[in-house]
């Protein structure tokens, strides 16, 4: 079953973190990604640019609107994602627990809709 691990965290805290904390986090993510690859579960993933670079498109009633910023102002913002392929929810949760993002944010585990 495919699952998306959505990594939410406080963007401004992360962007203003000191050099050392940042490089530690970077190294942790590298190791985590490597572990997923070696386990053969990784199907994709990316770090996303901050919400200041986001643009949101809507078309209520057919009237298109394009606005700067994320879809909503939230306390935690989507910072990145992984797509994994594992046998069941427990396996997905096990990977989510290992994600460095849990220390300062939340990981949402979402099953992909099977077609």
């Amino acid at each position, binding site marked *: 079953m495919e699952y998306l691990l959505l990594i939410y965290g406080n963007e401004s805290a992360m962007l203003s973190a000191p050099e050392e904390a940042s490089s530690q986090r970077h190294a942790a993510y590298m190791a985590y990604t490597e572990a997923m690859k070696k386990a053969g579960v990784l199907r994709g993933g990316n770090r996303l640019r901050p919400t200041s670079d986001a643009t949101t498109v809507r078309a209520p009633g057919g009237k298109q609107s394009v606005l700067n910023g994320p879809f909503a102002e939230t306390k935690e913002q989507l910072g990145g994602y992984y797509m994994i392929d594992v046998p*069941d929810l427990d396996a997905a949760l096990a990977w989510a627990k290992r994600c460095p993002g849990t220390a300062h944010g939340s990981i949402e585990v979402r099953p992909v809709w099977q077609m």
Partner: protein
Amino acid sequence: MARASYGKLVAFLAARTRDVAGAEDALAEAFASALAEWPAKGIPRTPEAWLLTVARRKLIDAARRRQTGEAAAPTLLLLADELADAADGDAPIPDERLRLMFACAHPAIDAGVRAPLVLQAVLGFDAATIGSAFLVSPAAMGQRLVRAKNRIRDAGIPFRVPEREALAERLDAVLEAIYAIFTEGWSDPAGTQARSRELADEGIWLGRLVASLLPQEPEVLGLLSLMLHAHARRDARRGARGEFVPLAAQEPTRWDAALIDEAEGLLMRASRMKAPGRFQLEAAVQSAHAARRRSGRTDWAAIVELYDALLRATGSVVVAINRAVAIAEARGAAEGLAALDALQADARLTQYQPYWAARAALLARRGSAGAAAEAYRRAIGLESDPAVRAFLQRQLSYFT
């Protein structure tokens, strides 16, 4: 059909498809077929296998009709089973009920719906019956159950007995669900509400089932011991006129000695495994109370120690209240009240009858008549059981 068979068949089918509702429906259709055919053709030599074959056929047909990718893997498992059965048709159906219970009590399932799920999937109760036990409308309970079963299937909740590291924690959730079923049966210990009485029996039945499947797990034995102890006193909880009789006033001769003996045996086996836990501690408290049948007295100091450990393990408010009462018995009302006062910070207590009842009893013992009366009134206002209410009103009358 025997209760044991129903759960086994649902579990076996659901474990392969992760679709509890689908398994229940297929089995219901298989039962309907049985009712139609068996009277005419006679009961098959292995009725369980017959039902399983028919139900499995229906599941495979349903999957083919849907023709989606997600059905493919489970369908293949079912087909593989068919082939295996053709080769060895008399093999007993493996008991997957434990795996089913672990799925029902998975952390991803809302805690409030785990016990109802177990009641439906393992024991075959309908939503209306379950709803009435948990004081929820049949429609609402039905909806919750459907949502929970969908979640098991769509989120990919596994049907698996967890590995060593996760087992203790996950098992606790299963045991909690069983205990919730058992305690629902206690709202009317006299059994005048037939349904409530049944649930206590169902709780014990499930406890025995898990104990037979996991005999080396001390907490499982602890839970069964706890339930048997409580059940042993069911006749003593009501007097001749149906009035409520608190534990301290109960006649040990009215306790079921055989059940207590069984409970003690289980607790002893569990303690030899040297892995204490919440249910063993609760059972030990019950054991201390039951000892009164031989010694004529209650070792309150030991009970306080047990509640100390329980409080450390669970942080539960119920435990804290029971502990305060035990402290009062062992060291005097003033100390008991001090322990209760320490709980005041919890806002939920204002709605919690046992807190006020305990407070009232301790205030009365300390001689604070006015405060005791006030506390009794609050307890009475929060109590739903008429017999307990009558008891509290009698206590109140001594102060007014």
